[in-house]
């Protein structure tokens, strides 16, 4: 999956902290619920899904400069409905909020920007016509018209002291997470609709305080929507998106609940064939907790997947990749070593 930092609830209702991270465990009264029988259709499903409480478009990229320096880039657009049935609303009163997060990580620095918008004004949105575009302010991920609108895209965002402008070209198919894009998030049946495009090849430019840097690398896009992805007792999650040098990829997550947690994921072959991992197959073990922004955050992990002969260690490229946003969390690039090597992204919430 990609139970990502969907955070708006925290700032909307702090009481919701008692119900899972950022209120994601709150009940979904009145909102649409994910349907296991639903077949995702594209490009329609690239767009927004009114009726669902939360939705996000999420891009992470692991990049390398001409001098071999490594970088990570994050671009996220969250959409949330604050009340069910927000169709008929006066101007400015659509019960919908948008939030954008952008980050750029180097070995020793982590740049973060956040921007917020209310729905219905045009300040933020997602459209499919004339081509796919998701934006908030002047941050945008926009594709060209085509059978799959995500084939070729541009990705831009900027903060006070950084920015990036990247071109993304898909070199593989879309991957439906879970069962046909229905991703279960707890033993109690919480779930979301979730698909990814993990095969982007990236070229572009990063704007750093020192100047512009030309980069190349890989990017991974997730699109997920739901109304209640967490069970009430789930307090946070650790999420991994890993690209191995073999061309294979792994998406995995741990939903922490004070007990064993709920662990799941998808093994993605180099040709894009996705296999949902059975419960318990993936074992994720934090190895080292560092003091980050006053919290103990595990920045080194051991991941094992016996079926695939996988036993790797993940090391945060920059342990201080703390997202000091409205609702803070950790998100940054990791380096993979062990049975497989490669690079990936790690997200940890609820610490």
């Amino acid at each position, binding site marked *: 999956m990609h139970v990502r930092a969907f955070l708006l609830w*925290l*700032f*909307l*209702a*702090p*009481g919701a902290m008692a119900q899972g991270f950022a209120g994601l465990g709150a009940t979904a009264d009145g909102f649409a619920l994910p349907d296991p029988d639903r077949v995702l259709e594209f490009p329609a499903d690239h767009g927004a899904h009114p009726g669902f409480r939360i939705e996000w478009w999420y891009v992470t990229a692991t990049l390398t400069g001409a001098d071999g320096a490594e970088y990570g880039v994050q671009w996220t657009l969250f959409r949330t409905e*604050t*009340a069910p049935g927000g169709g008929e609303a*006066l*101007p*400015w*009163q659509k*019960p919908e*909020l948008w939030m954008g997060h952008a980050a750029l990580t180097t070995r020793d620095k982590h740049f973060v920007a956040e921007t*917020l*918008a*209310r729905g219905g*004004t*045009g*300040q933020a949105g997602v459209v499919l016509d004339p081509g796919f575009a998701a*934006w908030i*302010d*002047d941050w945008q991920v926009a594709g060209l018209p085509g059978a799959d609108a995500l084939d070729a895209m541009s990705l831009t965002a*900027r903060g006070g002291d950084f920015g990036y402008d990247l071109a993304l070209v898909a070199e593989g198919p879309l991957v439906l997470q879970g069962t046909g894009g229905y991703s279960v998030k707890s033993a109690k049946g919480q779930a979301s609709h979730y698909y990814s495009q993990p095969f982007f090849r990236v070229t572009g430019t990063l704007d750093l305080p020192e100047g512009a840097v030309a980069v190349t690398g890989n990017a991974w896009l997730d699109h997920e929507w739901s109304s209640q992805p967490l069970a009430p007792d789930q307090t946070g999650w650790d999420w991994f998106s890993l690209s191995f040098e073999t061309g294979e990829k792994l998406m995995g997550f741990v939903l922490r609940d004070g007990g064993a947690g709920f662990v799941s994921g998808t093994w993605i072959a180099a040709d894009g064939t996705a296999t949902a991992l059975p419960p318990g197959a993936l074992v994720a073990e934090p190895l080292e907790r560092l003091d980050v922004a006053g919290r103990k955050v595990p920045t080194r992990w051991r991941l094992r997947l016996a079926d695939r002969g996988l036993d790797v260690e993940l090391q945060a490229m920059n342990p201080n990749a703390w997202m000091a946003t*409205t609702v803070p969390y950790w998100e940054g690039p990791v380096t993979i070593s062990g049975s497989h090597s490669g690079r990936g992204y790690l997200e940890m919430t609820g610490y």
Partner: protein
Amino acid sequence: MTWTALSALMSHWRRHPLQLILMILGLALATALWTGVQAINAEARAAYDKAATVLGGEGVNRLEASTAPLTMQDFARLRRAGWPASPVIEGRDRTLGLRVLGVDPLTLPQTAVPAGMPGVGAGDLADFLAGKLGYASPQSVGVAVPGVVLKPLPDLPPGLVLVDIGLGAQLLGVDQQISALLMDSVADLPGPIPAGMVLKRGGAELGLSRLTDSFHLNLTAFGFLAFVVGIFIVHATAGLAFEHRRPVFRTLRAIGLSSRLLAVLVMVEMLVLALIAGALGVGLGYLVAGALLPDVAATLDGLYGASVPGSLSLRPGWVLAGMGMAVVGTGVAAGGGLWQVWHLPPLETARPQAWAKARARMDRVQAGAGLALLAVAGGTLLVGHGLYAGFAVLAGLLLGAALVLPWVLARTLRSIARRARPGLAQWFWADARAELPGLRLALMALLLALAANVGVGTMVGSFRATFTGWLDQRMAAELYLNAESQDQAARMQDWLAPRVDAVLPVTLVERDLLGQPGRIYGVVDHATYRDHWPMLEQVPGVWDLLHQGKGVLVNEQAARRSGLALGDPLALPGGEVPVIGIYSDYGNPEPQAILGIAAFQARFPEAKALRFALRLPPEAVAGLSADLTRTFDLPPEAISDQATIKAFSLQVFERTFAVTGALNVLTLAVAAVALLASLLTLSGLRLPGLAPVWALGVTQGRLAGLEFARSVVLALLTAVLALPLGLMLAWVLLAVVNVEAFGWRLPMQVFPMDLVWLFGMALATGALAAAWPAVQLYRRRPTDLLRVFASAR
């Protein structure tokens, strides 16, 4: 030695406590009025600053529309181009009587967030965004905004509610229109300022303070007038104290006290008195301001939509200013006496005759100066313009007339004395003239107070008469109705059509007119307008031309501010139109224009008609209101009848001038005290003049009666002179000051009954002030008079 001298000086006050009381009272009253006005102004200014800093303070820049109004689309377009712009809706909810400020907390620049307002991340934000929570100043959290909980935020000005932009748009009945876009930094904008927008940098002067400036200048002028009148009292009492203590000064100098030390001692004494009286005056001023502030607040709110708290806080600014004025005033009032003390020859003897002669010469010099001032006032009236010129005319007129007064009175009394029968009558008039030098200052104060009363009374009366007539014309419809939506408006219109004589939709847009925020109305062709609209100037066939789209009507304010005359083109969105009529529009600071409905709709297709004026027989109003309320489930504020609106408007009007009236009465009171002080001063001095008359056989009772009559006659003569002065004052107020301050000129009307009443006031003032000295004279032991007669000083 110093101590002995000081206690000798001070013993005077012990022996004449009344003088001490008058001295302190006069100074305290003068300081009180001045301080009160300053306190009110300070409070208002603080409120404006607060209003300005809510969203216009340092570091908050505004993008505003220069042509068409800004909309949600402009906001989204700029955001997508990378502008750090945040939308804001400002306006006045007339049914709630509140200023509404709608913001978008998600994009609001940090520099613009009022202190204490929870930002993004705080728990209240969800309720705020949902329109369930708003903020208001602690004084205003009690107002009822339906469905909204108001929390106090001390940084907000009173009368303003800060709400989410969604709720704000709903309360103000605007659709996608916004008032401005706020930005914190403009250092690194992604592009040039878009066409149709202007950038206003933070901290720039707000229209509000400019609008209300004239009002505060008015108050300040009044406060100063009161202060000047008060200083007359202090001068009179200080003069008395110096006169009485001449022997003491002489003795002190004779036994070796240097003139310098004596002057210093007297100065210290005066300073102490000034500080005591100043403190008293500041305290009194605080009470005066506290009593007047609610009215001032209501006035500013009604007239300019400016919110000022109804309660007063102690500010060091006006406290210090009040004390300073008390000290300076004492210095001015006692300066002459001090100078004399300094230069007093040790063996000075009384020279009343020489003194009187010098005084007569001085009167002529003073009268010359007065005439010069009057000439300057006249000249200013001819060539000057602007509010300050208006006040300059007022000041010149008042001061000039006051300076001329003693000379005019002296001439008048002399000519009367010449015509009087020899004997007691002639003595009466001649003695009145002899008394004049001692009373001149008090009479000047009385003249000023009376003239101010006549002037302001006439102005307010003229204004009231015009305003009431105007209300009758303007509020011709019997019932006014507000719909919530276009859909409801349409249903209402259908429902109303068979039930009333006429449904007149009121369509309007808020646009910049002649560079100021204003309103443009579209009106239908109906007899209600043709027969009743309060036109000041119009071209022939104005209504036909209007409905053919061949012209526009503007209100008087707009015409005056921009010098528009009939036939001049007015720039409107969609092209220029000639002005074909100018109408009066009191109580409204904004420029306004009226188009025929067809022309209006062609220019502003987006405008919605949500308000209606209904014509129906007056006796059917109550029934129809009830039916309307029931049928459409209307809130009470959706319907207003003519009588209620008129009553409300008149109430705003009365409150506007309540402050002026109160200051007026206080000024007159100060003048009365001044007269009393002077008469008391004189009563002792005049004994040598009265004793011979008594010795000739006029009884003490008769003498006292004559003394009383003399004071009343002097007051009456002053009142006669105050009358033309007051009417001139009224004319300047109506034709110059009002035009500058409010943008309208009013016809002057004279109210004889008011003037008669004022004569009564003058008589009463004179009588009240003269009664006590006359009684004192009556009660004097004959031996006093005998001794005075024998020693002749």
